[in-house]
């Protein structure tokens, strides 16, 4: 998860871009985010996109990462009734979709809840 840290104002922009999203300064350096954060808000989606039906139930969360940026992410290894605001999550690589015609499997980052002891 590459982001940019601004050396002028300290702001972290995700995903990485060569210009700070807050002060528009160009003095930024790439930083690898740890992928840990907390759920700010979430929604359970019932209307999937074509090719993503296997994600049901699809839980989308607004996550505030430790380094500062807020991002949207899909939760994995979680049931809707267990999710709550303030819950700790961490990024993991998971399969997101399959192109059955070309036989390609796509992987991307998802977030799983951090439970006590895990």
């Amino acid at each position, binding site marked *: 998860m590459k982001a940019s840290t601004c050396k002028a104002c300290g702001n972290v922009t995700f995903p990485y871009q060569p210009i700070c999203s807050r002060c528009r300064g160009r003095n930024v350096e790439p930083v690898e985010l740890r992928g840990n954060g907390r759920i700010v808000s979430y929604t359970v989606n019932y209307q999937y996109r074509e090719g993503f039906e296997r994600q049901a139930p699809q839980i989308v969360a607004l996550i505030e990462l430790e380094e500062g940026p807020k991002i949207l992410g899909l939760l994995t290894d979680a049931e809707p009734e267990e999710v709550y605001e303030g819950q700790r999550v961490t990024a993991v690589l998971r399969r997101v979709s399959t192109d059955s015609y070309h036989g390609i499997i796509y992987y991307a980052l*998802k977030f799983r809840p951090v439970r006590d002891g895990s």
Partner: protein
Amino acid sequence: MVRVFLTGASMFKVGRHYNMGFIDLVNEVFSSLESSMSFQTDAVVVASAYPEKTSDQVLLASKVIQEMGMGDNVLGLRVEEGDASGLAALAVGFSLVKSGLAKNVLLLGLEKQSEFPSRRLNDIVAQNLDEVYSHGVGLTNHSVAAILMREHMKAHGLDYEYYASWPIVMHDNAKGNPYAYLDFKVTMDAIKSAQVVSDPLRLFDIAPRADGAAAVLLSSEEATPKNDARVEVVSVSSSVVRGDYEPRLLSVGNSMRSSLSQAGLSMSDVDLFEIHDSYSVMASMILEETGLTPPGRGLEILQHVPVNVGGGLKARGYPGGATGIYQLAEAYQHLTGTFPGKRVENAEVALVQGMSDLGETSFSALLRVM
């Protein structure tokens, strides 16, 4: 300075037009415009967001020019800026007239969206999302809007019923609009018990995407008939602001204030707003940017100022990139007293606001009767 006027408008009912292709839709609006006025088109600017995906079509402007028999010397081009394409096309047409390159520019909004099940349409419009981290993982626009709605609710202590006031008023406004897709009344109970799409977002919180075609004619002063009330396009503005998931729409405020200040007017001078209510929460956040309501209470403006009198995206329907052209056509007809549905009396100043589905980019146009 060359002045730019809106001199004609034509709309086709937003809906499910399975048996009509792009040219059939164009024919409806172009022939009705031609029968109401005489003009020589110098340029055609097509506003369409998704034709490659929905219809395997490009080169739309050239096809329109040929099939409508506009002549051999007409400039044709298409503008794509997602669901903001309509007002982006206005910016282009406005520039063509201002620069003297064209005396009459036909802005044509065209979109086909109803031939698909929702999972396919959701996939098509998800092209608007960030390439890697939102589109790539399978998010839908609806889920992003749902998160914004949740954040808006929490920030302002609102319950679901607050948002339900929007579809009630929009559906009521659409009654009598012959171009509206959903011209029926809805009740609070029906809205509150409708299908959950992505909680807290329910069916009536989402503008229904459908097929549509609309046209407006932009003319230089010399090409504008002198006898009628003339509608001037005083200013066209835009703003792009990176979304940060805060429940506000900075791009909207920027574009609206810029349009007004160029015209030397303020928000309280606006007699009629046309806004891009892709979701009820968007309507609220757009209207909060006017500064005419308490924070987080954008929808309360409905009690004081006419907004989306033809039903808005919610009930007139949401024809994607063609939306802005419908908004311009409706505003023009209100200002000239020719709108065939519910009317605004004695309106002289209209602010038309259009944007991408989730509001990263917003355009505004200030129209004024001269």
